Protein backbone atom coordinates (compact mmCIF):
# COMPACT_ATOMS: atom_id res chain seq x y z
CA UNK A 1 0.00 0.00 0.00
CA UNK A 2 1.53 3.29 -1.10
CA UNK A 3 2.06 6.03 1.48
CA UNK A 4 2.35 8.69 -1.21
CA UNK A 5 -0.53 11.07 -0.66
CA UNK A 6 -2.50 12.70 -3.46
CA UNK A 7 -1.11 16.19 -2.80
CA UNK A 8 2.35 14.96 -3.79
CA UNK A 9 1.16 13.96 -7.23
CA UNK A 10 0.89 16.15 -10.27
CA UNK A 11 -2.44 15.77 -12.00
CA UNK A 12 -1.90 15.79 -15.72
CA UNK A 13 -4.98 15.61 -17.95
CA UNK A 14 -5.16 12.28 -19.74
CA UNK A 15 -1.75 11.25 -18.42
CA UNK A 16 -1.31 7.82 -16.85
CA UNK A 17 2.04 8.61 -15.23
CA UNK A 18 2.06 9.83 -11.64
CA UNK A 19 4.64 12.61 -11.43
CA UNK A 20 5.90 14.45 -8.36
CA UNK A 21 4.01 17.71 -7.80
CA UNK A 22 6.54 19.24 -5.40
CA UNK A 23 10.25 19.87 -5.10
CA UNK A 24 12.10 16.92 -3.57
CA UNK A 25 14.62 17.85 -0.86
CA UNK A 26 17.09 16.19 1.48
CA UNK A 27 15.51 15.34 4.85
CA UNK A 28 18.54 16.52 6.80
CA UNK A 29 19.82 19.70 5.13
CA UNK A 30 16.99 20.60 2.69
CA UNK A 31 19.28 20.56 -0.32
CA UNK A 32 17.18 20.55 -3.52
CA UNK A 33 17.37 17.14 -5.20
CA UNK A 34 14.68 17.12 -7.89
CA UNK A 35 12.26 19.60 -9.46
CA UNK A 36 8.50 18.94 -9.82
CA UNK A 37 7.41 16.71 -12.70
CA UNK A 38 10.80 15.02 -13.06
CA UNK A 39 10.06 11.84 -11.10
CA UNK A 40 7.49 9.15 -11.90
CA UNK A 41 5.96 7.26 -8.98
CA UNK A 42 6.48 3.53 -9.23
CA UNK A 43 6.13 0.53 -6.95
CA UNK A 44 9.36 -1.43 -6.87
CA UNK A 45 9.98 -3.43 -3.68
CA UNK A 46 13.72 -3.07 -2.98
CA UNK A 47 16.03 -3.63 -0.06
CA UNK A 48 17.85 -0.38 0.64
CA UNK A 49 20.68 -0.12 3.22
CA UNK A 50 19.85 1.95 6.29
CA UNK A 51 21.55 5.31 6.67
CA UNK A 52 23.66 4.39 9.71
CA UNK A 53 25.97 1.42 9.95
CA UNK A 54 26.13 -0.48 13.22
CA UNK A 55 29.53 -1.72 14.29
CA UNK A 56 29.36 -5.46 14.57
CA UNK A 57 31.35 -7.63 16.93
CA UNK A 58 33.01 -9.35 13.98
CA UNK A 59 34.64 -6.04 13.02
CA UNK A 60 33.12 -5.68 9.56
CA UNK A 61 30.35 -3.09 9.28
CA UNK A 62 26.90 -4.49 9.83
CA UNK A 63 24.60 -3.12 7.14
CA UNK A 64 20.90 -3.23 7.98
CA UNK A 65 18.41 -3.26 5.14
CA UNK A 66 15.00 -1.59 4.88
CA UNK A 67 12.30 -2.89 2.60
CA UNK A 68 11.24 0.10 0.48
CA UNK A 69 8.56 0.13 -2.24
CA UNK A 70 7.65 3.67 -3.28
CA UNK A 71 10.17 5.24 -5.63
CA UNK A 72 10.33 8.21 -7.94
CA UNK A 73 11.79 6.95 -11.21
CA UNK A 74 14.07 9.57 -12.78
CA UNK A 75 15.39 9.39 -16.34
CA UNK A 76 19.04 10.40 -16.67
CA UNK A 77 21.40 11.57 -13.95
CA UNK A 78 21.51 15.12 -15.26
CA UNK A 79 17.79 15.44 -14.59
CA UNK A 80 18.67 15.91 -10.93
CA UNK A 81 19.35 19.36 -9.51
CA UNK A 82 21.81 18.13 -6.90
CA UNK A 83 22.70 14.54 -6.09
CA UNK A 84 25.72 12.42 -5.25
CA UNK A 85 26.66 8.93 -6.44
CA UNK A 86 28.44 6.39 -4.27
CA UNK A 87 30.98 3.93 -5.52
CA UNK A 88 29.30 0.79 -6.84
CA UNK A 89 28.66 -2.13 -4.52
CA UNK A 90 27.61 -5.39 -6.19
CA UNK A 91 26.69 -3.49 -9.34
CA UNK A 92 24.60 -0.87 -7.55
CA UNK A 93 25.39 2.80 -7.07
CA UNK A 94 23.59 4.51 -4.20
CA UNK A 95 22.33 8.08 -4.40
CA UNK A 96 23.03 10.57 -1.64
CA UNK A 97 22.52 14.20 -0.78
CA UNK A 98 25.09 16.30 -2.66
CA UNK A 99 25.39 18.72 0.26
CA UNK A 100 25.37 16.77 3.53
CA UNK A 101 26.12 13.40 1.94
CA UNK A 102 23.47 11.50 3.88
CA UNK A 103 21.89 8.51 2.23
CA UNK A 104 21.17 6.25 0.51
CA UNK A 105 18.22 8.28 -0.71
CA UNK A 106 17.98 6.04 -3.76
CA UNK A 107 19.91 3.85 -6.18
CA UNK A 108 20.65 2.96 -9.78
CA UNK A 109 22.40 0.11 -11.55
CA UNK A 110 26.03 0.91 -12.22
CA UNK A 111 25.52 -0.40 -15.76
CA UNK A 112 22.40 1.71 -16.38
CA UNK A 113 22.52 5.28 -15.14
CA UNK A 114 19.52 6.23 -17.25
CA UNK A 115 17.04 4.78 -14.76
CA UNK A 116 17.43 6.15 -11.25
CA UNK A 117 15.24 5.57 -8.22
CA UNK A 118 14.63 8.02 -5.35
CA UNK A 119 12.99 6.58 -2.23
CA UNK A 120 9.82 8.39 -1.19
CA UNK A 121 10.48 7.57 2.48
CA UNK A 122 13.93 9.12 2.51
CA UNK A 123 13.17 12.61 1.16
CA UNK A 124 10.90 15.54 2.02
CA UNK A 125 8.66 17.67 -0.19
CA UNK A 126 8.34 21.46 -0.38
Amino acid at each position, binding site marked *: MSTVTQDLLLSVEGEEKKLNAKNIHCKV*CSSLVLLPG*KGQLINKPTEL*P*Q*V*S*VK*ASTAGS*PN*VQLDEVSDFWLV*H*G*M*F*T*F*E*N*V*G*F*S*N*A*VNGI*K*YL*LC*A*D*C*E*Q*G*PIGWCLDAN*RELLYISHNRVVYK
Partner: protein
Amino acid sequence: MAKTYDYLFKLLLIGDSGVGKTCVLFRFSEDAFNSTFISTIGIDFKIRTIDLDGKKIKLQIWDTAGQERFRTITTAYYRGAMGIMLVYDITNEKSFDNIKNWIRNIEEHASSDVEKMVLGNKCDMNDRRQVTKEKGEQLAVEFGIKFMETSAKASINVDEAFISLARDIKVKMDRKLEPVGSGSRSGGPIVPKKGEDKPKSRWKCTIL
Protein backbone atom coordinates in the same frame (compact mmCIF):
# COMPACT_ATOMS: atom_id res chain seq x y z
CA MET B 1 13.05 13.20 -22.34
CA ALA B 2 13.91 16.78 -23.27
CA LYS B 3 17.28 18.14 -22.23
CA THR B 4 16.82 20.19 -19.10
CA TYR B 5 20.07 22.13 -19.10
CA ASP B 6 22.15 24.39 -21.33
CA TYR B 7 25.69 23.31 -20.45
CA LEU B 8 27.36 20.30 -18.90
CA PHE B 9 30.82 20.74 -17.38
CA LYS B 10 33.06 18.05 -15.95
CA LEU B 11 35.17 19.28 -13.05
CA LEU B 12 37.88 17.72 -10.91
CA LEU B 13 38.97 18.56 -7.40
CA ILE B 14 42.60 17.85 -6.74
CA GLY B 15 45.07 18.53 -3.95
CA ASP B 16 46.73 16.73 -1.06
CA SER B 17 44.67 14.55 1.23
CA GLY B 18 43.24 16.29 4.26
CA VAL B 19 42.81 19.67 2.59
CA GLY B 20 39.06 19.29 2.73
CA LYS B 21 38.35 18.68 -0.93
CA THR B 22 35.36 16.58 -0.07
CA CYS B 23 34.09 19.35 2.17
CA VAL B 24 34.41 21.87 -0.63
CA LEU B 25 31.51 19.97 -2.13
CA PHE B 26 29.53 20.07 1.02
CA ARG B 27 28.29 22.74 3.33
CA PHE B 28 28.23 21.01 6.67
CA SER B 29 30.58 19.75 9.32
CA GLU B 30 32.71 16.89 8.11
CA ASP B 31 32.01 14.86 11.22
CA ALA B 32 28.25 15.03 11.07
CA PHE B 33 27.58 11.72 9.37
CA ASN B 34 30.70 9.78 9.92
CA SER B 35 29.77 6.18 10.50
CA THR B 36 27.21 5.88 7.76
CA PHE B 37 26.70 3.42 4.96
CA ILE B 38 27.74 6.08 2.43
CA SER B 39 31.01 6.99 4.15
CA THR B 40 31.81 3.29 4.35
CA ILE B 41 31.52 2.69 0.62
CA GLY B 42 32.73 6.12 -0.55
CA ILE B 43 31.50 8.71 -3.04
CA ASP B 44 32.22 8.57 -6.76
CA PHE B 45 30.97 11.94 -8.03
CA LYS B 46 28.30 14.58 -7.61
CA ILE B 47 25.91 16.40 -9.90
CA ARG B 48 25.25 20.03 -9.10
CA THR B 49 23.12 22.58 -10.89
CA ILE B 50 23.95 26.27 -10.98
CA ASP B 51 22.42 29.22 -12.73
CA LEU B 52 24.78 31.39 -14.76
CA ASP B 53 23.47 34.43 -16.63
CA GLY B 54 20.09 32.74 -16.98
CA LYS B 55 21.62 29.50 -18.30
CA LYS B 56 21.22 26.24 -16.45
CA ILE B 57 24.58 24.59 -15.96
CA LYS B 58 25.10 21.02 -14.76
CA LEU B 59 28.39 20.32 -13.05
CA GLN B 60 29.64 16.78 -12.68
CA ILE B 61 32.31 16.90 -10.01
CA TRP B 62 34.89 14.24 -9.16
CA ASP B 63 37.10 14.18 -6.11
CA THR B 64 40.49 12.48 -6.13
CA ALA B 65 39.78 10.84 -2.76
CA GLY B 66 41.86 7.72 -2.31
CA GLN B 67 44.48 8.58 -4.94
CA GLU B 68 45.82 11.86 -3.63
CA ARG B 69 49.48 11.45 -4.47
CA PHE B 70 50.04 13.43 -7.65
CA ARG B 71 52.44 10.83 -9.01
CA THR B 72 49.61 8.34 -9.30
CA ILE B 73 47.31 10.66 -11.22
CA THR B 74 47.86 10.49 -14.95
CA THR B 75 46.18 11.18 -18.26
CA ALA B 76 43.27 8.80 -17.78
CA TYR B 77 42.12 10.67 -14.74
CA TYR B 78 42.12 14.06 -16.44
CA ARG B 79 40.44 12.88 -19.64
CA GLY B 80 37.46 15.05 -20.50
CA ALA B 81 38.00 17.42 -17.57
CA MET B 82 37.01 20.97 -18.48
CA GLY B 83 37.86 22.55 -15.14
CA ILE B 84 40.12 21.73 -12.24
CA MET B 85 39.94 23.07 -8.69
CA LEU B 86 43.33 22.94 -7.01
CA VAL B 87 42.71 22.87 -3.28
CA TYR B 88 45.15 23.44 -0.42
CA ASP B 89 44.65 23.88 3.29
CA ILE B 90 45.69 27.30 4.68
CA THR B 91 46.65 25.61 7.95
CA ASN B 92 49.02 23.19 6.15
CA GLU B 93 52.02 24.71 4.37
CA LYS B 94 52.99 21.40 2.75
CA SER B 95 49.66 21.23 0.95
CA PHE B 96 50.31 24.72 -0.41
CA ASP B 97 53.84 23.89 -1.58
CA ASN B 98 52.45 20.86 -3.38
CA ILE B 99 50.10 22.98 -5.49
CA LYS B 100 53.04 23.67 -7.82
CA ASN B 101 53.57 19.93 -8.23
CA TRP B 102 49.88 19.53 -8.98
CA ILE B 103 50.03 22.28 -11.60
CA ARG B 104 53.02 20.58 -13.20
CA ASN B 105 51.10 17.31 -13.18
CA ILE B 106 48.15 18.98 -14.88
CA GLU B 107 50.38 20.58 -17.51
CA GLU B 108 51.87 17.20 -18.22
CA HIS B 109 48.72 15.09 -18.32
CA ALA B 110 45.60 17.24 -18.78
CA SER B 111 44.25 18.97 -21.86
CA SER B 112 46.12 22.24 -22.36
CA ASP B 113 42.96 24.34 -22.39
CA VAL B 114 41.51 23.07 -19.10
CA GLU B 115 40.41 25.93 -16.83
CA LYS B 116 42.11 25.99 -13.45
CA MET B 117 41.46 27.69 -10.13
CA VAL B 118 43.33 27.61 -6.81
CA LEU B 119 41.39 27.43 -3.55
CA GLY B 120 42.88 28.03 -0.10
CA ASN B 121 40.41 26.12 2.04
CA LYS B 122 39.62 26.30 5.77
CA CYS B 123 39.86 30.10 5.89
CA ASP B 124 37.60 29.97 8.96
CA MET B 125 40.62 28.62 10.89
CA ASN B 126 42.65 31.83 10.95
CA ASP B 127 44.25 31.04 14.30
CA ARG B 128 46.01 28.03 12.79
CA ARG B 129 46.92 29.70 9.50
CA GLN B 130 50.33 28.81 8.00
CA VAL B 131 49.83 30.24 4.50
CA THR B 132 49.05 33.95 4.12
CA LYS B 133 46.45 35.05 1.64
CA GLU B 134 49.17 37.04 -0.13
CA LYS B 135 51.19 33.88 -0.78
CA GLY B 136 48.15 32.29 -2.35
CA GLU B 137 47.55 35.33 -4.52
CA GLN B 138 51.20 35.44 -5.54
CA LEU B 139 51.16 31.81 -6.66
CA ALA B 140 47.99 32.41 -8.64
CA VAL B 141 49.55 35.41 -10.41
CA GLU B 142 52.71 33.42 -11.13
CA PHE B 143 50.72 30.73 -12.93
CA GLY B 144 48.00 33.01 -14.29
CA ILE B 145 45.24 31.18 -12.42
CA LYS B 146 42.31 32.57 -10.43
CA PHE B 147 42.48 32.32 -6.66
CA MET B 148 40.02 32.37 -3.76
CA GLU B 149 40.09 31.54 -0.09
CA THR B 150 37.17 29.35 0.92
CA SER B 151 35.64 27.79 3.95
CA ALA B 152 33.48 24.82 3.22
CA LYS B 153 32.59 24.66 6.89
CA ALA B 154 31.45 28.27 7.13
CA SER B 155 30.07 28.35 3.56
CA ILE B 156 32.44 31.12 2.51
CA ASN B 157 33.08 31.51 -1.23
CA VAL B 158 32.40 27.85 -2.12
CA ASP B 159 29.48 28.54 -4.45
CA GLU B 160 31.29 31.62 -5.77
CA ALA B 161 34.34 29.52 -6.64
CA PHE B 162 32.34 26.99 -8.63
CA ILE B 163 30.39 29.73 -10.38
CA SER B 164 33.61 31.55 -11.27
CA LEU B 165 35.21 28.40 -12.71
CA ALA B 166 32.03 27.52 -14.59
CA ARG B 167 31.87 31.04 -16.02
CA ASP B 168 35.42 30.79 -17.35
CA ILE B 169 34.64 27.46 -19.01
CA LYS B 170 31.44 28.84 -20.51
CA VAL B 171 33.22 31.90 -21.92
CA LYS B 172 35.84 29.66 -23.51
CA MET B 173 33.20 27.32 -24.91
CA ASP B 174 31.00 30.13 -26.28
CA ARG B 175 34.02 31.57 -28.03
CA LYS B 176 34.70 28.22 -29.70
CA LEU B 177 31.11 27.91 -30.82
CA GLU B 178 31.11 31.29 -32.54
CA PRO B 179 30.69 30.91 -36.30
CA VAL B 180 33.94 31.00 -38.21
CA GLY B 181 34.51 34.01 -40.49
CA SER B 182 33.27 33.47 -44.07
CA GLY B 183 36.81 33.81 -45.49
CA SER B 184 38.04 30.66 -43.81
CA ARG B 185 35.76 28.43 -45.88
CA SER B 186 37.05 29.51 -49.27
CA GLY B 187 39.14 26.70 -50.66
CA GLY B 188 41.50 24.22 -49.10
CA PRO B 189 40.74 21.44 -46.66
CA ILE B 190 38.98 22.31 -43.44
CA VAL B 191 41.47 21.76 -40.69
CA PRO B 192 40.01 21.92 -37.19
CA LYS B 193 41.93 24.21 -34.88
CA LYS B 194 43.97 22.44 -32.25
CA GLY B 195 41.79 21.17 -29.45
CA GLU B 196 38.68 22.73 -30.93
CA ASP B 197 36.33 19.76 -30.76
CA LYS B 198 38.19 17.78 -28.15
CA PRO B 199 36.33 18.59 -24.95
CA LYS B 200 32.97 17.51 -26.31
CA SER B 201 33.95 14.24 -27.90
CA ARG B 202 36.13 13.19 -25.00
CA TRP B 203 33.43 14.13 -22.59
CA LYS B 204 31.01 11.70 -24.19
CA CYS B 205 33.35 8.77 -23.74
CA THR B 206 33.85 9.35 -20.08
CA ILE B 207 30.34 9.77 -18.71
CA LEU B 208 29.46 6.12 -18.59
